[in-house]
């Protein structure tokens, strides 16, 4: 327990220091966001709000009692070269976009010449970019470095089989951190740095994950190292939502349900259906011209002599891609180029409105859609666009009303273009009914469409059952979806929800760990 007491004392001291350093007028507070000591009779719980294990090819991540900083266990991360990937322990915590984040962990490596990496990162994942890597340690053959301002800065050489304790205090808004590193049994830090720019020198870079891996792609590391006592905290009073199920603060159906995928596609480009969308006579289109308006964008010819329609198509597809990535400036620029070539393309005008919606510029959006409706008559794409604007404003029932007239029970589409539009409407209606809490109606829609694409509509039906509080029906339906050929692995997570609600802890764990991994194989 001595190690644990030592850690607890250090955490407390740092919490006090963090609190004391706050501006006097602010209320001092410290909220633990994650604390993993890896002890206990059973291995700790993996999940979207705790941590995830990747053990690809021959690398492993497992609890170990051979070496630990405190308690009875640590985690051993073992990389193997030449297998095309790396093992990873990835921990999660509530996204921090302000204030200061405290990160503490203990680490020991068997052979300090082998490479491993440790990082704090945000929604941008592990890239040198805003919201990407905030804090990054890399152990190389010639020593440990931290990457600050995109520069690997030398720290020291680790010693084998020696515990080091790392304390990081990251100021999110300033984009800087303090770093203290202690060698075991030393009271004074080996390293004490202040005001270090974060990895990409990006103030405001948010963080929500911590990661421990082997090497990051060269695939030559044979590192074996141990991690213990991972503690993440914030210097403000926060009230993270409680865990509602093992490893998660929200059920998987709420974060991974099919409706969540549709939500992510709101205000993305609609498909081109015919020549009217482009504002050109039908006879003017050659075979294959409409297909140019499907991704990916085609290359421009080197000699610069390009069919203007092809150029417009390339610009519009590029704009759509930028829209998906929320690169609004890029989208606007590409869309402007497309509209210059085809100024009468009504679909480009609609794309402009979708861009506004995705950028959150919703003032006057529904009025602008109404204007287009006067030109287009009853095109379902406009109804879907209107429903997106309504849903974004939280007006779910009005959103449903906007798109409902375009949905017909039992409808059969005559052409591929009609099928595309029909799917657009049906997906949107399903999503809106869930958002409005009108689950019975959602079940009707699902039931009507199930025969056409059982694999995906059974998945949605399972979600509705789960959201409606019928986990038994959900479980049975998810299994039918998989039997019908649905290969979406996140169904397993929703089955985990259902198993949990039915009280089957073993099944829940097995299903959840099939995605999030497990530390239960102890060494």
């Amino acid at each position: 327990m001595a190690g644990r007491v030592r850690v607890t004392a250090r955490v407390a001291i740092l919490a006090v220091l963090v609190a004391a350093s706050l501006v006097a007028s602010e209320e001092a507070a410290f909220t633990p966001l994650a604390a993993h000591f890896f002890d206990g009779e059973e291995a700790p719980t993996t999940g979207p709000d705790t941590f995830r294990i990747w053990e690809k090819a021959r690398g492993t991540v497992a609890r170990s009692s051979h070496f630990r900083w405190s308690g009875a266990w640590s985690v051993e991360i073992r990389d193997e070269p030449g297998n095309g990937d790396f093992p990873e322990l990835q921990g999660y915590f509530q996204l921090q976009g302000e204030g200061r984040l405290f990160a503490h962990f203990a680490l020991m490596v068997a052979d300090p010449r082998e490479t491993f990496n440790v990082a704090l990162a945000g929604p941008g994942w592990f890239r040198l970019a805003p919201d990407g890597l905030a804090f990054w340690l890399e152990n190389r053959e010639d020593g440990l470095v931290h990457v600050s301002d995109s520069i690997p800065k030398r720290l020291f050489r680790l010693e084998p089989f020696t515990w080091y304790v790392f304390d990081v205090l990251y100021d999110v808004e300033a984009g800087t951190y303090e770093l203290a590193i202690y060698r075991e049994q030393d009271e004074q830090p080996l390293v004490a740095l202040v005001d270090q720019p974060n990895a990409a020198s990006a103030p405001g870079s948010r963080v929500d994950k911590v990661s421990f891996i082997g090497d990051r792609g060269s695939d030559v590391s044979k590192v074996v190292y141990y991690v213990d006592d991972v503690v993440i905290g914030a210097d403000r009073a926060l009230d993270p939502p409680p865990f509602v199920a093992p490893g998660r603060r929200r059920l998987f159906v709420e974060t991974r349900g099919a409706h969540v995928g549709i939500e992510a596609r709101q205000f993305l480009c609609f498909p081109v259906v015919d020549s009217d969308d482009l504002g050109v006579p039908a006879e003017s289109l050659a075979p294959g011209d409409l297909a140019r308006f499907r991704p990916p964008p085609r290359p421009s010819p080197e000699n610069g002599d390009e069919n203007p329609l092809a150029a417009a198509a390339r610009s519009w597809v590029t704009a759509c891609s930028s829209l998906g990535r929320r690169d609004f400036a890029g989208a606007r620029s590409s869309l402007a180029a497309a509209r210059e070539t085809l100024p009468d393309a009504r679909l480009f005008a609609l794309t402009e409105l979708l861009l506004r919606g995705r950028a959150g510029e919703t003032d006057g959006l529904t009025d602008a859609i109404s204007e287009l409706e006067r030109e287009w008559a009853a095109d379902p794409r406009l109804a879907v666009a209107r429903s997106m604007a309504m849903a974004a404003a939280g007006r779910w029932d009005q959103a449903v009303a906007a798109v409902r007239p375009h949905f017909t029970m039992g409808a059969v589409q005559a052409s591929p273009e009609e099928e595309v539009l029909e799917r657009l409407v049906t997906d949107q209606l399903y999503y809106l009914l869930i958002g409005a809490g009108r689950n019975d109606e959602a079940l009707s829609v699902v039931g009507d469409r199930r025969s056409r694409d059982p694999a995906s509509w059974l998945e949605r039906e399972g979600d509705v059952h789960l959201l409606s509080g019928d986990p038994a029906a959900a479980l049975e339906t998810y299994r039918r979806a998989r039997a019908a050929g649905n290969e979406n692995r996140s169904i397993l997570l929703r089955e985990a929800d259902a198993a949990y609600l039915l009280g089957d802890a073993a099944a829940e764990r097995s299903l959840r760990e099939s995605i999030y991994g497990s530390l239960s194989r102890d060494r």
Partner: protein
Amino acid sequence: MDIPSTARRFLCVSLLAAGLAAGLAAGDIAGADAGVSRVEAGLPDEVEIWRLVEAREGRVIEAYGRSVLPRLAAMYRGADEEGRAELAAVFYQLRWKSEELRELLMADLDTQDQSLRVTVQYALGRVSNDDVVVEALLETMTSDPSPLFRDKAGCGLAHDQVHLTEAQRVRLYGRLIELMDSDDAETRSLASRVLHAHTGQWKGYHAGLRPEKRRESLERWSAWLEEYESQLE
């Protein structure tokens, strides 16, 4: 760490033909420099290797170990441009450092065949960290008559110099910072985008800014480079 390669690849492959893009986007094979063959049955014949190459089965080829490399090199020498482009795409995936492959690819650095040329520009940094590779790509990026080849040389410098030592990386950054002071706007733009790809930073630089604003930013970059160089001492 999940290091999403697809995001960084988008701009650099968006102008490639779909087949080539699909091949490159199939992902890297992390090179096993130890190169011990894992296939007990021996090396495949040329017909089988071509089948694997055309199917972009880099992982299967990798499993044979570096002992298959001479055969790949011989096939490259005897192939037409289309075949050499296919092989270069596999060299790209394998990431095996090889002087022999570098020489073969360098010989195609002047081809006007679009597919072969772009693939070679991408693959060179994957087979070598020889200084001539970086210099050749910088030369292409700044001087080639083709805007496509100039742009793709930049892509290769940005994403595919995987064997550079830290010192070589810093030298590359120094060259890029010099080029960001060029009189040519496209050169400035390409150089700054390559540097951004490596560092995630602009430091207030844009190729279209007025010279005095660019100079302020370049001073920041120069100071940054100085600090980076000090870390190598």
